[in-house]
Each structure stands twice: as structure tokens, then as C-alpha cells.
């Protein structure tokens, strides 16, 4: 636990010691609120709900989360610090978990800083706080899912740009599997049970439940197991690739 903590603290601190953290947070806040007010026309709708705010999260995370996570292992491998890390008396999982949770918490902090949106909607009307809470939870889990995918691709390449592009493509695919347009398209030539099974694997499908105010255990299990699976794959990749 102490080793996990040491890696976690170091990692989190390194975000805030470089300008990356501030650039990310500013862009994230501008993009989420910008989309809410200008694209979703939050004021004009005259409805006290944060739905027009949360609806953008998957699409913003699609680029922003890989941007946060791309350096996680790429940089360690490129600069050779991975050799330092894995000759210190810590296990692979302690290092892996420390890095992942630090990055996740960092995205969580950015997400938390959107709280003025909640204040705004509370000031303007009387929103359903249950839905807001479940939406935030869903958004945080979705970010974790994207991040675990990014972690995996980050371990695969020493080049951050390649890690970023592969992560975006993979996250996009995982998102699109559940988007209406795509499932309709699949329905045309696949039996319904199959296209539904495919969309059940999508981040999007499971994210939507939270937006409706449902904290379904199946959705929780989905995100937790996706993260677990991706991190396990990440461990395998690292084990094989760390010395290259």
C-alpha cells in the first residue's frame, strides 16, 4: 500500500508540476461549458437539468482523456525511467494502479471543477439532484474506462502521439458501438439480439443509464470490469515490452 501511495503521489504531483494539468483543466472547463451553453442552448431550453451538460462528456473525453493518459507509460519507456521504476522494490501492480488512479483522480478533479454548473442550474430552477449525482458518477466512470484503454495503448508504444491516436480510435470504437446511428445500421443485416449484444459492450450504452438517474449495478460492474480487464492487459503488455 505504501508503494502504491508513493507512486500515486508522485504521479499526481507530476501533473500539477507541469503546465499540462492547467492547460487540460482550462480546456476541459471551457469545452464542457461552451458546448452546454452554445451548442445545447442551455438557457434557451429553459429546463433545469444538466442533461445538455453531460451529453457532451463522452465526446470531449474521447480526446481529452487520451491526452491525459498517453504519457503514462510511453514516457516512462522512452526516457528509460521504467527501468528505474521496475528495479525499485515495488510490484508491477503497485506501479500500474498508482499511475492509473492518479490519472483518474486528476480527471476527477477537472470534473469536480465543473461544480459551478450545478450551482447555476440550482440558482435558475430546482433540478433533480439525484440525476445530477448519478450523471457525475457515470461521467467519472466513463473517464476511468477511457483512461484504462489509454493506459493499455500507452504501454504499447514509446511514442506518445501513436499512443494518443490509437487510444482515440479505440475509445471512439467503444463509444460508437452503442450510438443509435450505428446500432440502426447493424440492425439492417444482423439479428436484433446480436446487434444488442454488440451495443451492450459500448461505453455509450452504459453511460446513458447514469444520465437517466439510474445507478444500475450492471453498469457499475461493466465499468469496473472494463477497467480491470484493460489494466490486466496493460500489465501483460508491460511485462513483455518494458525492456524494449
Amino acid at each position: 500500500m505504501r508503494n502504491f501511495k508513493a507512486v500515486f503521489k508522485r504521479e499526481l504531483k507530476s501533473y500539477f508540476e507541469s503546465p499540462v494539468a492547467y492547460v487540460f483543466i482550462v480546456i476541459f472547463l471551457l469545452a464542457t461549458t461552451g458546448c452546454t451553453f452554445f451548442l445545447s442552448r442551455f438557457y434557451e431550453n429553459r429546463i433545469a437539468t444538466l442533461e445538455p451538460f453531460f451529453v457532451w462528456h463522452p465526446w470531449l473525453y474521447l480526446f481529452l482523456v487520451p491526452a491525459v493518459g498517453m504519457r503514462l507509460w510511453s514516457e516512462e519507456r522512452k526516457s528509460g525511467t521504467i527501468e528505474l521504476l521496475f528495479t525499485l522494490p515495488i510490484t508491477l501492480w503497485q506501479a500500474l494502479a498508482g499511475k492509473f488512479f492518479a490519472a483518474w483522480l486528476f480527471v476527477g478533479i477537472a470534473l469536480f471543477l465543473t461544480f459551478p454548473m450545478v450551482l447555476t442550474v440550482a440558482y435558475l430552477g430546482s433540478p433533480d439532484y439525484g440525476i445530477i449525482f448519478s450523471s457525475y458518477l457515470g461521467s467519472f466512470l466513463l473517464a476511468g474506462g477511457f483512461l484504462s484503454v489509454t493506459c493499455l495503448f500507452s504501454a504499447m508504444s514509446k511514442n506518445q502521439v501513436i499512443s494518443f491516436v490509437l487510444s482515440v480510435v479505440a475509445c471512439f470504437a467503444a463509444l460508437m458501438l452503442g450510438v443509435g446511428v450505428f446500432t440502426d445500421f447493424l440492425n439492417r443485416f444482423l439479428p436484433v439480439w446480436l446487434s444488442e449484444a454488440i451495443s451492450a459492450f459500448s461505453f455509450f450504452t452504459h453511460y446513458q443509464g447514469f444520465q437517466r438517474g439510474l445507478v444500475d449495478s450492471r453498469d457499475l460492474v461493466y465499468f469496473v470490469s472494463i477497467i480491470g480487464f484493460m489494466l490486466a492487459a496493460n500489465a501483460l503488455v508491460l511485462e513483455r515490452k518494458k525492456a524494449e
Partner: protein
Amino acid sequence: MISVQSLSRHFGNIKAVDNISFSVDKGEILGFLGPNGAGKSTTMKMITTFLPPTSGTVTVGGFDVIEQPLEARARIGYLPESSPSYRDMNVFDFLMFAAEVRGFDGEERLNRVKQIMETCNLKEVAYQQIDTLSKGYRQRVGFAQAFIHDPEYLILDEPTDGLDPNQKQEVRNLIRKMGQEKCIILSTHILEEVEAICTRAIIIGEGKIVADGSPEELRSRSKQHGAITLELIGVDAKEALNGLEKVQFVDRVVEVENGPTAGQNRLRVRMFPMSGKSIAHETASFIHQRNWQVDGFTVEKGDLNEVFYALTKGGAAR
């Protein structure tokens, strides 16, 4: 003790390390010598548990690096090649991180870091970002990180690479000081370094150990070893060569240089002894009898460069 047995590592068809065995005891400073790509770093990566061997075993202080990697790592201080460190951190934070992972807490952790910054002369850059430091300082940060837990075993991959002569000297002094109570393996391709600090040297070529011994032993394998270089003034070359060849145990005499310098004829010859014999005394008395004017008399210790070259190029030293 670090014990390496029948260790091999293959990358595809390439045998980077090919069945090597050796062991290193406390108090020894072992120098790993070899051309680039000979397998020095690969071997070190296996000893430090970073790279799993294809076959063979390594134990560090009795702990197998595959079975009990954490136990082994806890006892090792490792300076990887080109001393990587988290460049976006400052020196102090980085060392605090290293100390924490090495199991130090609170007061002790702070004291360790302060002390190691003192030892490695890092105090004046404690709060500078590592990225902004010169190569020499970065190397010292790497050292500090490797020494912070006062490990029994030190593995240093090219510790003086890229340093200026003063810094090299500093690092060598540090290693020599540490070497008295530790077990150190360092790799280098600088031969003078091996002569300066190592108690033992292993030469690796194409993944195999081609020589293992003290620097003196290795040097004595040089063709030059025990040869005498003479500088004579105003002596006829032919007479000298013929005379010197008859000295006891002399194998052959070679003229190195013959020409007038400052109005006098200067003759330089090299005399090679028969295998295992010393010719210094006989040569000296021979010259004394002839009453030649001697300007130089050198018994060659042998050239490690030559041995190194011969062994790693597939040629044979004596």
C-alpha cells in the same frame, strides 16, 4: 554475494548474453568491459531483475531474481545507463520519492535525503527541476538515488559516461570509497577506469566471457608485458641489436626508432623476453658492462587496450 550461473538472454536469433557464469563478493569492484553491444547492459538488466533471463539463474544475496525479485531489488542500488530520472521533478522531490519507495518514513526519510544530497554534492540544486540540470548533475542524481538506502550491492551501468575529467575523478573516488564494504559491478568501455578502480575485470565479447581476472593479470596477457624499451644515445644500431639479442632470456629485439636528435644519434629498441621470464636485471648489467649512455629504460606493464582489442576482435593475446 552476487552469483550468476549459466545466464543467457536471446533476442530473437541474437544471443545477447550467451551462457555466462561468475560471482562477485563483498569488497570487490568488478568492471565489466566490452565493446558496445557485447551484452554488458543486458547482463546488468538481468541481475537487477529488470529483464528476465532466457535461461540460467542469478541470485543476489541469496535471493533468486525471478523467485524473489522484491527481496533482490531491496538490496540493490542500480544506476541504469544514461541515469534516467523523472525529469519534471526537482532533485529533492525525486530523492524523497526514492527514499519513500525504499521504505523510509518521516524524519529518517528526510535525513537520508539530506545526507545523500550532501554526499553527492547536490545541495545547491536541490530545488531545481532535473530537466534543467547538466549531464554531470543528472548523473549525480542517479547516484544519489542508487545509494540512498545504502545497498549491499551496487550495479552501475557506465557510471562515468558523458562526464568531464573532473567529474569522472569525483565519481571514481566515490566508487572506490564505497567499494570497501560493498559489492560493486560497473560497466564501462573506458579501460583506464578499470585500471583505476576495479579489483577485477571481466571482458565480454559477443555475449561470452572472454577474460576474467585482476586488471594486472589481464594486462600481463598483453604481448608488451615484461618487454623493455631502451633509449640509447650515440650507440651503433647494429652493434646494439646484436649485443642485446644475446642477453639471457631475450626472445627478440626490435628497433623502434633510429635517428639523430639534437646532433646525437638516438636509438630506441624494444626487447621482448621469453615467455614468463624477466630480463630487466640482465639487461641492466649488460648495458653497464658496455658503458652505453642510456636515456630511457622502461619495463612495459602491458597494454590493456591491446588485450581488449585482441580478445574482442577474435584475435589472440598471448
